[in-house]
């Protein structure tokens, strides 16, 4: 009874048995899975592919930035600064503090690389389907590299030949890459697209909100036009046209087609649904102001835009000319629920690329060019000139983010427009401001990176 020792021992024992081990400290993974261990089926690749589409539709990429920043620097639009957005881009006053699409595009590329480098032999499911998904991922990887190249490459800066780093591995050996040359990036893009086209099988394409086989060719044509690789642009366009899968939307449904999903002319668009959209950080909110005052509405058309259309052109109806400013209300129209899909590849662009490539290679461009005005209530061209082709591209593709590149690749000067619509400065081609600065965060993290001149 007076011996306390056994009690102490028992207490020590109690402490010992109630102790915890490393296993008791194992956390739960409830919303996440290990990258290394969870890709076991072809279906997992499809899930990642959808995730990539979701990233692309984010406001840091096609959900807003890549389209708006290019529009606002072109002669199509400027920023009124109504909410203070996109005034820096509109006036070419940006500096290296902005990340723009850099991180978004590379995030897309990282995810495509997981799909592309997956060993299909080890995955459950249809291997052919797996190859198709890998082709889709390659197409998107090419698109992302091309987007990075046209935004950050030095092709229009008047000096240098630097492109962007080409990344083909997820968490690869070199985590501090240097910039590839413009030609190297272009070659990588073409290479990805050719491989992609050969890997994909149209039988698996059943929706236009997921990238598909002929998108690879449409993109190849777009890239070829950008770089003036005209014969390649001709062949790639013809592949798309000869597939017979797509057609130009007729005049009477042109405006309404923007309010609806899909359509015979839509090769690939990013889905926006009532529950999954860029919301107030999306395109509609940036172009429009609702009657109740909601909407940032910073980006408005320049007055000259009205002059490029004939009165009978249905494309005029895309615009609201009633208010203080001319606004795009017809493309990405839903400014309440934000459910408008974002078309990235329309058949009309393929036709225009084809027309321009034919023009440059001495082919019959006029027939192709006139297919567009013929379906828009506009008069036909009597002659296919470079000027007419660019004019028709501007009319057709306005507010979709193409004009800036069209102006650059044809060596036009740019106008920096103030919030009041007045031209602040004319920037002669070429100029350092035609390439974005590499973001400061990238420069600080990676000393192999070379900054574009002027920043």
């Amino acid at each position, binding site marked *: 009874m007076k011996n306390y020792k056994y009690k102490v021992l028992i207490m020590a024992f109690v402490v010992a048995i*109630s102790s915890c081990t*490393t296993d008791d400290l*194992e956390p739960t993974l409830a919303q996440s899975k290990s990258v290394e261990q969870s890709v076991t089926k072809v279906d*997992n690749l499809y899930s990642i592919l959808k995730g990539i589409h*979701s990233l692309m539709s984010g406001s840091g990429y096609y959900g807003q930035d890549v389209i708006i920043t290019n529009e606002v620097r072109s002669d199509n639009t400027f920023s009124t600064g109504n909410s203070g957005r996109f005034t820096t881009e509109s006036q070419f006053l940006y500096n290296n503090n902005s990340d723009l699409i850099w991180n978004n595009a590379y995030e897309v590329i990282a995810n495509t690389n997981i799909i592309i480098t997956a060993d299909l032999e080890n995955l459950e499911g249809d291997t052919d389907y797996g190859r198709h998904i890998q082709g889709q991922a390659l197409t998107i990887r090419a698109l992302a590299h091309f987007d990075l190249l046209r935004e950050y490459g030095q092709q229009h800066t008047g000096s240098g030949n630097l492109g962007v780093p080409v990344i083909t591995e997820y968490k690869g050996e070199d985590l501090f890459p240097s910039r590839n040359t413009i030609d190297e990036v272009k070659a990588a893009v073409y290479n990805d697209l050719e491989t992609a086209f050969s890997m994909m099988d149209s039988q698996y394409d059943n929706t236009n909100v997921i990238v598909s086989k002929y998108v690879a060719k449409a993109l190849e044509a777009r890239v070829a036009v950008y770089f003036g690789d005209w014969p390649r642009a001709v062949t790639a366009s013809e592949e798309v046209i000869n597939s017979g899968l797509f057609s130009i939307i007729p005049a009477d449904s042109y405006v309404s087609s923007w309010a609806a999903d899909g359509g015979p002319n839509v090769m690939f668009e990013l889905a926006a649904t009532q529950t999954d959209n860029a919301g107030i950080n999306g395109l509609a909110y940036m172009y429009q102001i609702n009657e109740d005052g909601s909407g940032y509405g910073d980006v408005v058309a320049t007055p000259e835009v009205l002059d490029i259309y004939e009165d009978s052109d249905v494309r005029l109806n895309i615009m609201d000319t009633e208010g203080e400013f001319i606004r795009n209300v017809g493309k990405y129209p839903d400014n309440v629920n934000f459910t408008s899909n974002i078309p990235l590849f329309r058949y009309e662009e393929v036709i225009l690329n084809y027309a321009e490539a034919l023009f440059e290679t001495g082919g019959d461009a006029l027939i192709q060019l006139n297919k567009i005005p013929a379906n828009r209530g506009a008069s036909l061209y009597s002659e296919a000139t470079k000027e007419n082709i660019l004019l028709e591209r501007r009319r057709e593709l306005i507010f979709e983010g193409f004009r800036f590149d069209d102006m650059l690749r044809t060596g036009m000067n740019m106008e920096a427009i103030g919030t009041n619509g007045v031209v602040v400065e004319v920037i002669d081609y070429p100029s350092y401001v035609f390439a974005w600065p590499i973001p400061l965060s990238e420069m600080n993290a990676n000393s192999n990176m070379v900054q574009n001149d002027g920043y």
Partner: protein
Amino acid sequence: MKNKLHGILTLLLAFVVQITFAQEKTVTGTITDETGLPLPGVNVIEEGTSNGAQSDFDGNYSISVEPGDLLVFSYVGFETQSIVVGSSDVYNVTMAVSAAALEEVVITGYVAQRKSDITGSLVEVDAGKLSEYAAASVDQALQGNVAGLTVSQSSGTPGSVANIRIRGLSSITAGNEPLYVIDGVPVNNGNVSASTATSSISALAAIDQSTIESITVLKDASATAQYGARGANGVILINTKSGKYGKTVYNFSSQVGFQNDATKGPTPLTSAQRLELASEAYYNDGYFDSEQAAEDYILGNIGLFTQWDEDGRPESNWSEAVANDDALYQQHSLSASGGGEDNRFFASIGYLQQEATVIGSDFERISGSLNFSKDFSPSLKFSSNNSGAYTLQNAFLEQSAYFASPRTAKYFMNSLRYPYNEDGSPAEIGGALPNPLIGARDDFNENRFTRIISGNSLDWDIGSGFKAGTKFNVDLQLYNYRTYGNRNYGYGVPVSGEASQYDRTNAFYVLQNYLEYDFEINQDHAFNLKAVQEYQASRSYFLGGDGNNFADDGLFYLASAGTPLSVTSSFSDWYMGAYLGLLQYSAFDSKYVLNLSYRKEGNSRFQEENRWGDFYSIGAAWNLHKENFLSSSDAIDYLKLRGSYGVTGNANIGLNNYQSLFTYGVDYNGEGAQVVDTFGNEELSWEINKTLDVGVEFGLFQDALTGNVAYFRRNSEDLLLDVPLSQTTGFNTQTRNIGALVNEGLEVQLNANIVNTKDVSFSIGGNFTTVENEVTKLPLDPNGVERTITTTITRIETGHPVREFYMPTWAGVNPETGMEEFYVNGVDGETTTNFNDAEAVFQGSNAIPTLTAGMNLNFSFKGFFVNANAYYAGGHKIYEGWHLYLHQTNGYPILAYNGYQSLMDRWQEPGDIARHGKFTSAGEPWQRHSKYLYDADFLRLRTVTVGYDLPSSAMEQIGMTSVRVFLRGNNLATWVKDDNLLYDPEQDLGGETGLETPPTKAFLVGLNLTF
């Protein structure tokens, strides 16, 4: 763990049953103190056994023992006595007050120590001090009372969180928040809000401060290393009240008052000024030949101006419209405490209501607590501390410039729009900014938070110096968030009303077991050994959704939403396990003291191999006043040298960061999808802090002058840093253990009792702390180049404080051209008007004060008393947010939004020396530079209390033990060093002013009754 816990309880309960032996007799007696008064509740124990009894109210005891047994009489605050049982059956005992008990005992973590035995740096703040600052959460009251501790309110909205930093910043990426411990149990007291847009709500605000006995802040490693990984940022120990033996004592306390913004903030432009500036801007831009022509055009052609002119040019005064003048504050609590022979209790109920100084926001708390202890036997004590509170916060969109926020409207709303219709009802104005008066009335953002804490422990005095115990604590936090945007006006209109509701359940379980052994060698060497085992599990579950399209008004539950939009649910958890050993050694009645601690701790945030870390500390003290050569000194009553060194850790990072992960939180076209979202790092482990602390504590001239001086140096290594990655990897950062920083400083605390007589007492005190913070190591890339981390206004680079402000330097307004200019090299010489040509440079300091000080004054004369407390912070800077729209001479403040009257100091014609440049009607892009960076030094009178204690003669007549009435003021006066800093200087640690509710100035009247 559940099964294990069950086992422990069963085992412990088994010991309650004791077997008795034959040949016993019953011994009785009366226990009194030295004045002859009976002492109830004295423990009478047969040594080496658990056989024992307690004295009753009359001091009588009775116990069965055998002759020859040793009876030990012990009672807190008295010298322990022992008696060998002989032939007598009656043993009366007189207990002498313990000399040691005269010394203050402070809870220092897992143990309580006498003041002279403490080797570390800690500060105790008592209930009296804590009650002087009227706020929903008690941490606000620590400002100025604890040297080295800064409290930064994230907002003045009642119930929102405050950021506390103790002795600087120990980490760049991992958390810098101290660990909170309530009644010995580590708890989570952070922000529980589910929204990053609306007001935050602090879990600490669910604790009724009137139930708190004291708060002890542990600052150095010898004090904090026992908390191991989580002690690196300091520890805040909250000790709740408990009952005492004796008759039940009731206490009622109440304070009621009103509050307004502590500082006025910038004054918005009036409409008349708006017209003047707009005319000037149009003229400057060359649209008109004269300002008069521009004004004529504006009044004739810009609708809102025309209307305003026709209406007789009224001033809309949005500042007044959105202010909740004289916002109510009321706090009431009623408690009862007491105890019987073998039990003690403290019970309380409390109510607090605090309105914000802006319309539509307030906070309410109803709370109750019961702390109860019961001695199952004299050697086995059970205690249970329970508290529960329900809080409701009407939050609002304040974390950015949300157009629906009344605080945004104050500055952003076009002054030409009127808040009210002619009939006095709120106007349904158009434009981008809706009238917040309608939103405040018809919409809501509600945070509901319920917190229940129950801590139950058994402590067993095994005998012969051995003690053991177990404690199990549950902290259950239920959070609910509801929003509604009405169908008729504002953002809810296009979708016919919108609503969202979210629920979160956080459950924190803590289990502690300990075994303790006290022994002495030759009476001169006292040892205390303690082993503790601790396990903590934290689980969080989240569920919610939103929808829109309601058929009618007054419906805001999702069941009525015509279009359900989204649902979400998620689960997360983390676990912590630890073993702790403590040794306290004191020689020659604490002349020399040595404290050692060692803790092995594991955390689920790290990969299996790196999960466990080792932390330790060593502390020593030398009480010189106990040496013979000083013991006879008249001047020196107390003099202690102390020093400590220890290693603590920090694991306060996101969950599951060590793994490379897919998230499934993305979806596409209505289908589930996945993308990678964590780069992963299998080597991830603890961030290490090595802290050295040396100090001297003294009491001179019968403690007329007391104080302490301490030097500290904290080296933080293997920082858990979000290392910037090349974004070509697809990631921005990877969490790694790399980098180092140092915090070094001096703390001085002094208190002088100038007069201390029966009728008059007067004391003044103060403390100040310096902290130098410097980053000493950052990761390098393969070329050996440092990977700095830069934002538009700050940069992290070695040789500089963390996040030192870094931006181009403003050179002023050119008197000839009116253009704002910047230094090309960032320092001096050549200037440019092209912002992109100006080099960004370090601006000298970050947003954390390098010098803080607290001052207090206490005066009493007979029953009257005055207490005051002031706080100073300096050496840091603050950046003004939103200046593009509100504080630049462009089109935003005069045509789109509204600006500050300080803009009137602008350049108008060549030769003008002005703070602001030439006005233009155009917008400008964001350009952040030093013009908007201000010295943030300020001095604030935080509390003043004037009161009166009724004399005891008066109280006897009304049956009271004590009655106190008082008047109290909080934040009555503020001095700000930089006249250009228009916002309140007390800002969030982010270092950028925002549109949150500012701190408040309060006037209160209060009453305390004890009976």
